[in-house]
């Protein structure tokens, strides 16, 4: 059986289609289409959770996404567990496990409930006033205690095995909400021929028609009309309907984010199907038909399980066929609750009484109540309730005082009226206006290309809402550029026109009371807390919100904001609009991180860029390091070798035989055009017009501020063609920097830039035998020292493949860099290796490259420089042309602090003990015995064991470094102080003869 409270003949679910699920370990039967809330209510289960602060027992308040109380932990297996799920939204599936939260040891007996007794001490903001002594106790004692008590659900501890999808979409008209207004608007827009997207958060269209059985449209019951209309829309080519889809964020320029829940309602989802799909929609026009949310009444102990919104009870009976009680009380300030009572009464449920705080409810509903024999107490209020884990009685008095009648009930349904859902409108940064007559904020000034229709726009009358929606559908389509017309205008009839509504505290919860009349259920914020905040000087609604945490729970104030505002306004004795309104931010309802990141996980988190030789390197045991997006071979350990041993071997081998190195990741830019040299003259500190075709030069690039930006070797292939190289990480920004100047400052120059980083695989062959290895493979290039000296470039072929062959060196030994079109990279690498290996050469990685270049005093931009180092500081001042009248950086370099004495300069340093290798990043001081804070002279930028020098070597940026040659300085480390000597930058082959082989 799907529950004793399931009323035969009521509801729209199919009795035969049952599913099983568990709640707190107990098994229940539900019907397909049930929410957890409806399924549990069918079994008479009202107690679903505990509140945040006082751990009070809580039930189901709503039948929608505004639910603050009934938050459960829902899982299908241990890794697929989702905390804080609204029972009122989650559909039951076969095998689902639901658990209550924030209670221990059990939901019905929760130790944390003691907080409720202590609540006078836990008033709003109490924690600002205590827990300050002793000083360290906040973090060590109080905070851990508060943190454990706070929080709701338990975060998953396993990696999420599900996957998520994302899509960008465009449409002419996006309609949010598939209630009467949304459907009417979507139909009208669709009939004009516009591309329409219609989204609704519920499993089926209908919105308020789910509960509002008093509405007929075009002669059909409202809900049936909604289903027929959706079917009609779905059949149209220009319409996309998405259900279980929440428009959660309205961003700039009509960009609306949606999340579609694809599998959370399925018992056994296909593993290829994404759990959720995020849609990012750019809509030419948006129609928001988001409806309204019913508010609760604010009175003492209004939070007991069994107390719920009237519209929720009506949803449960009319849609799910579930009676939320057998003797139900009604407490209202709005006519709509009467209709809930009528529907329940007609379903055979006893209505204890309708307590209406108003003296004059709508005449229609009053008459109907009378005819149904329902007792109506106008001018009365519920001032308290009884019951432990479920409401057992409502305490009723005449307004203004009098005897209290305790009327036994097993459920109490409440309504203080409806709050238009202006969330998306506010997110779009439209301006609201307060309508004093109806006591609500309504859309006023639009900031984006959108319009609100129906209940969220304050249009209460059914036909007026339909007319407004149809007209919006046509006009929004027209504004989107679609000139069509709509032929359909639905005709709607509602049984009653609703009146009424109130904001703020009800009878018995007024200014001088200390009762617990809840406004924000989840955070346990009561009316008295708002008043306390005001007393403490919090006069801005934002201060009141932050002080009391009203509206900061996971429902983000959907139920509480207006009540809080009204109570604050009363306490401040100011009209509501002068107290203001807190901001509605995205998202409308919480959205999983998984949906937000959609595909960006695992290999798709961030592209891992690999060179054409990567597979070979991997197969040959390379360890890789991350450099920007690139994976670079770091070193190639042989069996049993440590990193240190491998690097030492590689360093030795390169200097004695040769080494082969993958330099493909270096940035490459082809600079082509008659003004190419003139352009490079402006971009680099060096002069380029003097470089002859076939030759290369090392270039330094500064920004306008004079600090080193990048460096690299530039080869001139022809008068009008340069092959520029950049650092690996610098490639994109250098190209952007060059394009910026070319397009913006020097557009008169005839030159173009093309990134060729990935066109070429680059194989560096360095060491005494480099020429011997390569020469037999190369065709059409004379590699002799005479015709191909150091720093030259030639085009020819290698193994039959075109190559740009550079004679250059980043090791100080004779070296070549073979550029071949990337698809050939691995084959040519293998061909070179086939010659190199038998000669005793090695392959080497970036670590060895770093050591070898350091031995020779070559800098690495970004390691030996940071954004505060000039070419002069870095010891490459020679690369700054003294003759040029302009280049980027020429003026910045001359600023007073850039030419000052005592700047940090890059120098070599050697440890007194040659076996000690300094830590990169270590700080250097003159006096190691000075007290802290010490005066630091600079830091170690590069430091290695140099196998070739037989000692450690290092670079450091030292204040006035070049004037300190030969001096002893100190590197104080935690365990010892290391004496060092300042040297020049070159540690190996000081004469530089090896470069010529």
């Amino acid at each position, binding site marked *: 059986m799907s529950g004793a409270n399931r009323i035969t003949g009521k509801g729209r679910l199919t009795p035969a289609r049952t599913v099983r699920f568990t709640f707190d370990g107990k098994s229940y039967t539900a019907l397909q289409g049930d929410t957890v809330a409806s399924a549990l209510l069918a079994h008479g289960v009202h107690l679903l959770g505990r509140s945040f602060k006082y751990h009070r027992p809580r039930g189901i308040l709503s039948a929608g996404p505004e639910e603050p109380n009934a938050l459960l932990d829902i899982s299908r297996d241990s890794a697929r567990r989702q905390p804080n799920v609204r029972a009122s939204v989650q559909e039951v599936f076969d095998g689902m496990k639901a658990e209550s939260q924030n209670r221990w040891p059990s939901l019905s007996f929760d130790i944390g409930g003691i907080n409720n007794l202590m609540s006078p001490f836990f008033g709003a903001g109490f924690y600002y006033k205590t827990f300050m002594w002793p*000083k360290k106790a*906040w973090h060590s004692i109080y905070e851990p205690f508060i943190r*454990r008590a706070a929080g709701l659900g338990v975060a998953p501890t396993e990696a999420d095995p599900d996957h998520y999808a994302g899509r960008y979409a465009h449409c002419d008209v996006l309609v949010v909400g598939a209630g009467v207004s949304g459907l009417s608007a979507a139909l009208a827009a669709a009939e004009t021929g516009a591309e329409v997207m219609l989204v609704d958060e519920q499993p089926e269209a209908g919105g308020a028609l789910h509960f509002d059985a008093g509405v007929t449209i075009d002669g059909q019951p409202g809900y049936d009309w909604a289903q027929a209309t959706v079917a009609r829309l779905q059949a149209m080519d220009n319409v996309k309907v998405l259900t279980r889809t929440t428009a959660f964020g309205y961003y700039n320029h009509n960009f609306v984010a949606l999340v579609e829940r694809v599998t959370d309602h399925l018992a056994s989802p296909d593993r290829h199907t994404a759990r959720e799909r995020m849609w990012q929609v750019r809509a030419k026009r948006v129609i928001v038909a988001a409806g309204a949310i019913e508010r609760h009444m604010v009175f003492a102990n209004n939070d007991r399980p069994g107390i719920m919104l009237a519209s929720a009870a009506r949803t449960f009976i009319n849609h799910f066929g579930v009676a939320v009680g057998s003797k139900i009380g009604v407490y209202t300030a709005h006519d709509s609750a009467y209709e809930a009572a009528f529907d329940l009464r007609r379903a055979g449920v006893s209505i204890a009484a309708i307590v209406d705080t108003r003296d004059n409810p709508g005449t229609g509903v009053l008459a109907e109540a009378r005819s149904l024999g329902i007792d109506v107490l106008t001018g009365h209020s519920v001032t308290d309730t009884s019951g432990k884990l479920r409401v057992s009685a409502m305490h009723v008095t005449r307004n203004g005082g009098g005897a209290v009648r305790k009327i036994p009930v097993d459920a109490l349904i409440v309504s203080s009226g409806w709050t238009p859902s202006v969330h998306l409108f506010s997110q779009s940064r439209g301006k609201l206006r307060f309508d004093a007559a109806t006591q609500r904020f309504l859309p006023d000034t639009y900031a984006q290309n959108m319009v609100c229709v129906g209940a969220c726009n304050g249009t209460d009358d059914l036909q007026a809402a339909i007319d407004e929606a149809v007209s919006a559908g046509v006009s929004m389509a027209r504004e989107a550029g679609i000139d069509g017309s709509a032929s359909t205008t639905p005709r709607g009839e509602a049984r009653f026109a609703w009146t009424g509504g109130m904001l703020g505290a009800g009878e018995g919860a007024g200014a001088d009371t200390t009762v617990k009349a809840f406004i924000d259920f989840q955070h346990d914020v009561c009316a008295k807390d708002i008043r*306390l905040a005001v007393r*403490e000087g919090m006069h801005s609604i934002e201060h009141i919100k932050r002080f009391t945490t009203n509206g900061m729970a996971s429902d983000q104030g959907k139920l509480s904001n207006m009540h809080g505002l009204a109570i604050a306004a009363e306490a401040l004795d100011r009209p509501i609009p002068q107290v203001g309104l807190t901001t509605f931010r995205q998202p409308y309802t919480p959205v999983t991180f998984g949906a937000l990141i959609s595909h960006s996980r695992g290999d798709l988190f961030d592209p891992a860029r690999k060179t054409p030789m990567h597979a070979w390197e991997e197969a040959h045991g390379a360890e890789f390091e991350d450099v920007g997006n690139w994976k670079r071979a770091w070193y190639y350990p042989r069996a049993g070798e440590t990193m240190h041993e491998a690097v030492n071997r590689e360093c030795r081998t390169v200097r004695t035989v040769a080494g082969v190195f993958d330099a493909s990741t270096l940035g490459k830019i082809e600079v082509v055009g008659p003004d190419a040299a003139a352009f490079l003259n402006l971009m680099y500190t060096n002069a380029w017009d003097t470089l002859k075709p076939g030759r290369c030069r090392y270039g330094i690039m500064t920004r306008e501020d004079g600090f080193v930006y990048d460096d690299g070797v530039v080869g001139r292939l022809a008068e009008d063609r340069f092959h520029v190289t950049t650092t690996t990480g610098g490639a994109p920004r250098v190209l952007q920097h060059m394009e910026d100047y070319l397009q913006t400052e020097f557009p008169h120059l005839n030159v173009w830039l093309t990134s060729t980083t990935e066109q070429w695989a680059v194989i560096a062959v360095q060491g005494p035998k480099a020429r011997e290895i390569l020469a037999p493979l190369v065709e059409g290039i004379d590699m002799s020292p005479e015709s191909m000296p150091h720093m030259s470039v030639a085009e020819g072929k290698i193994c039959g493949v075109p190559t740009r062959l550079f004679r250059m060196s980043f090791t100080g030994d004779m070296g070549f860099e073979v550029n071949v079109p990337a698809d050939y990279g691995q084959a040519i690498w293998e061909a070179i290796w086939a010659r190199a290996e038998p000669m005793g050469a090695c392959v080497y990685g970036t670590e060895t490259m770093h050591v070898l270049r350091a031995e020779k005093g070559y800098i690495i931009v970004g390691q030996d420089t940071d954004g505060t180092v000039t070419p002069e500081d870095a010891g490459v001042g020679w690369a700054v042309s003294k003759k040029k009248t302009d280049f980027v950086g020429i003026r910045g370099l001359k600023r007073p602090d850039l030419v000052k004495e005592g700047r940090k300069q890059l120098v070599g340093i050697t440890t007194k003990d040659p076996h000690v290798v300094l830590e990169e990043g270590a700080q250097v001081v003159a006096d190691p015995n000075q007290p802290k804070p010490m005066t630091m002279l600079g830091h170690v930028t590069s430091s290695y064991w140099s196998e070739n020098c037989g000692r450690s070597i290092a670079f450091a940026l030292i204040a006035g470094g070049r004037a300190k040659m030969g001096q002893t300085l100190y590197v104080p480390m935690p365990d010892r102080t290391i004496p060092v000597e300042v040297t020049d930058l070159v540690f190996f082959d000081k004469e530089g003869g090896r470069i010529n082989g």
Partner: protein
Amino acid sequence: MQKYSIFAVVREAMRGNKGWKAQWTSPEPRKEYDVIIIGGGGHGLGAAYYLAKEHGITNVAVLEKGWIGGGNTGRNTTIIRSNYLYEESMDIYEHALKLWEGLSQDLNYNVMYSPRGVMMLSHSVHDQQSFKRHVNANRLYGIDNEWMTPEQAKAYCPPLDISKSARYPINGAALQRRGGTARHDAVAWGYARGASDRGVHIIQNCEVTGIRRGPDGAVLGVETNRGFIGAKKIGVSAAGHTSVVMNMADVRVPLQSSPLQALVSEPLKPIFPCVVMSNTVHAYISQSDKGELVIGAGTDQYNSYSQTGGIQIITHTLDAICELFPMFRRVKMMRQWGGIVDNTPDRSAIQGVTPVKNLFVNCGWGTGGFKATPGSAHLFAHLIARGEPHRLAAGLTLDRFRTGRLIDEAAAAAVAH
């Protein structure tokens, strides 16, 4: 001032919490003040507090165009640390951190400073070099910051994924144990209460529309939406709106204001014990005492005063969070928001005199202003009271952009090579 204590809380509880007084008063503005501070955030309120407390200057007004603490003070992710690289930065942030350590007691207001540790993840050789440079500089400067192996990092922060299969495997971390978080609103309110108690006027909903200057160029006061208010000295501490205010005195400052976004998850039971930052993948995360995961996202790429930005900034940071903590993919974002950050070209703050006599400025804190609050406020008060910067803020002057003596923390972190 009504003293706050556990006894007061109990006493008032017995009386229905009816005896609590306003934390600060809301007086009508006087005709003239000795000092007007423009901007009622933590920095401005704090400066007023220290002017009164330490310099005996109590004829002070803080003018706030909205509600106090409503700017970046109330919109940031509350990270506190002092493990910066350059001496100018270490000086001020460490000064701030020392004040944070006793702030609750000083203010008699629990600002919930929680030294739970700030851990910065290293993902590459380059990160490691950079972090060790920080660790060593901090150590010699007397600031705690330590290098950790991946295993040590995981032990300190169990949710961390230190597997080698990660896209950017973690090869270590730098941890400042004294770093942590504090309750942002409490900072504004605590300073406001302390200042108000000492006679400072806190005037909300008071927007400055002009700065009036005398024939000698010195300031005379401010035009506001509540009329002219005279001032002998003016301190501007208006964060993202500094350019707007300084333009009223014809002073141009090297600032760009852009949106900075952040988000929180739904509340969860304690799972995340410290603050974790990763510059490589762009992630900043901690867990609030209420249980929300607090996540800092990046700045949008354009100038804006709108306090809102693109969703791609949010998703970009969540990509990184979920890469570092794959179990959080099922956690839900509850709220996102934005503030306006004022960035200088070198990403370090400006605090100093201006070309206009008796006009002082404190701005350019960019994304790091909250952690500096007590230190910045304390030194700003000194600057205003004495007319010249305190030794610890002497490097933050405006003229460095002319001379080139930049404090480029961002550049020092450098780039991949």
